[in-house]
C-alpha cells in the first residue's frame, strides 16, 4: 500500500499540482515529474552541490528534501534564471564570457548557490567567492575561471 499525497508547488513562478509518494526526493520530483532536468543529481548526500536550488529564496540541496516538504513553497531552479536563450541572467552571461564551465554538470548548482550569495554580498573578495563555492564540487575547471566569472558577474550586476 503506497501512500500518495497531493502537493502544490510554485516552481519558477508557475504552479504545479501533483500526486507524489512521500519518499520522492525533491530533486527527482523536479527532474522526473516536472521535466526540469537543469537541476542535476550528483552524490545524493549533500556533498557535491549539483542539485542546489532556491527554496523560498534561499539556496538548499534538493536531494536532501522530500517533494512533499515543498508543498506550498516557492522554488527557483536554473531554468528560472533566463527569460530565453538570448537573454541570459548576468551571472550566466558571465560564466559564458569567462569560461566558467567545461562539462557543465556542476554549473546549475553553482549558479543557484551564487544568486543568493551575490544578493547578500554584492562586492565579494576572491576569498569570499572561494568560500561561497566550497559547497559545490567542480571536477573540470580548477575553479579559477568560475572565480573570474563571479567577479565579472558582480561587476555586471552593480
Amino acid at each position, binding site marked *: 500500500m503506497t501512500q500518495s499525497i497531493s502537493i502544490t508547488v510554485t516552481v519558477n513562478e508557475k504552479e504545479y499540482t501533483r500526486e507524489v509518494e512521500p519518499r520522492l526526493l525533491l530533486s527527482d520530483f523536479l527532474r522526473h515529474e516536472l521535466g526540469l532536468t537543469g537541476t542535476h543529481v550528483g552524490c545524493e548526500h*549533500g556533498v557535491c552541490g549539483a542539485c542546489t536550488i532556491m*527554496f523560498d529564496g534561499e*539556496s538548499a540541496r534538493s536531494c*536532501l528534501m*522530500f517533494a512533499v*516538504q515543498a508543498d506550498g513553497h516557492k522554488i527557483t531552479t536554473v531554468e528560472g534564471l533566463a527569460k530565453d536563450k538570448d537573454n541570459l541572467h548576468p551571472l550566466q552571461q558571465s560564466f559564458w564570457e569567462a569560461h566558467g564551465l567545461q562539462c557543465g554538470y556542476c554549473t546549475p548548482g553553482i549558479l543557484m548557490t551564487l544568486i543568493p*550569495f551575490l544578493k547578500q554580498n554584492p562586492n565579494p573578495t576572491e576569498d569570499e567567492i572561494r568560500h561561497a563555492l*566550497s559547497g559545490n564540487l567542480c571536477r573540470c575547471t580548477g575553479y579559477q575561471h568560475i572565480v573570474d566569472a563571479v567577479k565579472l558577474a558582480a561587476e555586471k550586476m552593480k
Partner: protein
Amino acid sequence: MKPAPFEYHAPSSLEEVLNLKHRFADDAKVLAGGQSLVPAMNFRVVQPGVLIDLNRVAELSYIREEGDVIRVGAMSRERHLEFDPAIAKRVPLLHEATPFIAHPQIRNRGTIGGSIVNADPAAELPVLMLALNARLKAKNISRERWINAQDFFAGMFTTALEPDEILVEIELPFMPARTGWSFMEVAPRAGDYALMGVASLVTLSDDRKCENVKFVYLNAGDGPVDAKEAADIMAGEEVNDQLIDVAAEHASEKEITPFGNVHTSPEFQRHLAKVLTKKAVKQAIQRAGEAR
C-alpha cells in the same frame, strides 16, 4: 540511492507531534532539517517505518532573550543562529562557531535541535552545547523535563531522550563577564567534517588568573569530549605559556580518544588537538582580557 518507503506525517502543532511520537515511539524518526537524516535514508542506512516531519510546526522556531538566557526553539535553522544579533552579543562563541557547520546551503535547512539530537561526535553543535552549559528541554505527551547538556549525549549518535520524547527547546545562558572564547577546527575542505576541532572558554579573575576554563573537542571520541582535567590544570592559575602547553598536552594525549578515519590517523588528530588547543586558549585569554 533512493529512500525505502515510509509513512509520512506532517503535523502543524507540537501537540500532534507528541501524540504521534507517543503512538509510534522508536518506529518513527523525527525529520528536522534533514541534512543528516535524508542522506542516511538515501543510502538506506536508516529505514524508518514512519517519518514525523517537524517543518510545519511553527511554534518550534524562535530565538528570544529572557532574563539572562537565550531560548532557542529546536527547529530554528542554523542560518538563523548565525545572523541572530542576540546570540552574537550574548553567546559570541556560538555566533563564531556556526559558520563552521557545513555550507550555507546546508545551514539554510539544518536545525539546532536536529544536530543536537543526531549526536554526531564530529558535529559542532553538541560540542558547543557542552561548552556553553546549555540546558535542553525534552517533552513527551504527558510531561516535560530539562536535561543538562553534560547528561544529554550518551555515546555515538545516542542521547538521553526516551523513545516518546522530542527535544523542543535549547536554553543558552549568557556567557559570563570577563569571559573569552574561541572555536577552531581543521577540515580538508571548508564546510566538510572537521578532522579535529575545539571550543574553548576562559574566564579571567580581576588579578588575571583563570577563574574558569573549558575545552570541548569534536571528532575526539564517541561524543563531544569535555577535557575537564586539562581545564583543572589551568583553573586558579596565572596564565603563562608553559601552563598552556601542559594543559594542551594533557587534553590531547590523555583525555581525548580519536579513532582516525580515511582522512587522518588518531596520532595526527592528537597533534591537531594540541596545536588547536594552544591557539584557541590564547585567543580566548586575549578576548577575556579585552572584555569588561
